[in-house]
């Protein structure tokens, strides 16, 4: 993964990785590994203000503008499968231009069979997390 790859390119890279596994166990193991590689959430962000309290699991998400006009995301979850999805989102959306983040459809999660985790009815906080990421990107894109 290079800093200059677009959202699409990074998403394709994720999809290719997941295609290496032919059963759900492999895919979920890989997902959990992704979560383990997620950069640690700075303590300042492990706070109510950054928490999305789902019915099932909780998610923290924070964003900062970088000095080169992109967004840096920080995120975490208390469940490891949720954290794996969080890690994929951060991996794909990190250090991207705000307008690109605001406009992305995240269809790659469907292509790796993980879309169901993003369903609002799943109440794991992920759906609200994506909304927060996009709101932040929209706000930054319009300034």
């Amino acid at each position, binding site marked *: 993964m290079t800093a200059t790859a677009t959202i699409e390119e990074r998403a394709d890279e994720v999809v290719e990785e997941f295609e290496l596994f032919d059963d*759900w*166990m492999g895919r*979920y193991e890989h997902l959990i590994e992704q979560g383990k590689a997620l950069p640690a959430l700075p303590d300042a962000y492990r706070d109510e203000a950054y928490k999305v309290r789902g019915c099932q*699991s*909780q998610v923290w998400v924070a964003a900062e503008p970088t000095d080169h006009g992109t967004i840096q995301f920080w995120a975490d979850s208390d*469940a490891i*499968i949720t954290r794996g999805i969080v890690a994929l989102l951060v991996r794909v959306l990190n250090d991207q231009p705000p307008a690109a983040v605001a406009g992305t459809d995240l269809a790659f999660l469907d292509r790796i069979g993980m879309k169901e985790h993003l369903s609002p009815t799943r109440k794991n906080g992920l759906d609200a997390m994506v909304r927060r990421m996009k709101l932040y990107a929209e706000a930054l894109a319009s300034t």
Partner: protein
Amino acid sequence: MQPAPSRLATRTFDLDEVRSEFPVLSRRIHDHPLVYLDNAATTQKPLTVLDRIDSYYRTENANVHRGVHTLSQEATDAYESVRPVMQRFLGAASSREIVFTKGTTEAVNLVAGSLARGYFKKGDEILLTGMEHHSNIVPWQLAAEATGAVVKVVPVNDRGELDLGAYQALLGPRTRMVAVVHVSNSLGTINPVRQMIADAHSMGVPVLVDGAQAVAHGPVNVQDLDCDFYCMSAHKVFGPTGTGVLYAKEEWLERMPPYQGGGDMISAVTFEHTTYHEIPHKFEAGTPNMAGVIGMGAAIDYLSAFDIEEIQRHESQLVTHATGELEELGGVRLVGTAAHKTAVVSFLPEGLHPYDVATVMDRFGVAVRSGHHCTQPLMDQYGIPGTLRASFALYNSLDEVDRLIDAVRKARKFLS
């Protein structure tokens, strides 16, 4: 729970036969036979209920209480015939005490909303317990907000039982209402509601019982309990969604103002003044869920054909087996170990998150609920993000309990 009402058991309980009557149980999930252990969320529906709803729409559908034509008369008769069915099922004194609602949630809202108009005064106390479902918390908070009343909470101990001493101490001169869950959805605890009602009545305080989780698992008799209000949902007793019952003593229904306005609940309307229909119709505004109510009647007929004690024995075998096997596994925290409990086993493998475990268990075809089960205050008290909850119904088998345990074992191995 309480002495059984006079229901006549006409069927002996045969598990294979029962299972064959619930079509959805033959589904496969992720290439495994479905093991459905989320019955506290909603139960599956037997063929008799499905057929009854189907035939209602095919051959009887018309609006109730509205037309003189034959079809409307038949629909009205079919709908109203469920009232005495629910009266007998709950042991009510009169079918006038049976109000059809969308379910437990609407039943609680009906009572809380109605009592917020004139009954509760500033400083009055509404007494709830620490194990209430959100639907027996939030309506009272709304009523309290609207009237200046305050909500007080009876504490729960580590086993998941109510502290009765604290309850009695909290019952005071300002208490105007007690609302308590009969059977806890997240712990399975059967609360001593009969005693609690007697205590409240000795202080002149009415009691609402949330029976959502009780009615499928044991006999309920509202006259024996002497509760003022009892709420239930059809979908948790093998009936359709969107229907349920509020039982209320006649004197309460007479004295409470209507909750919603509309057609069917009035006897005369002018723009100056409207007079309301008699109870229970005063509380049933608008075209009701006719197919739902009729389906609920079929569900109660289905359940009532069995000796409820036979079902209780079967379910208690499932709970005992599941509890024993989970203890055997080791490293599994059981949440809710009350001396009196029903068909719920709530647990959490140490060091794991319920969301992760439930996601992996689903891959093995085992459907359990994960999360706080709409009882967030209780989970906060236990300091856990939630639990996994296996909740049983009459059609579950010991084999399915083994599949549950196997899935827990595999999920734990996979996740650690």
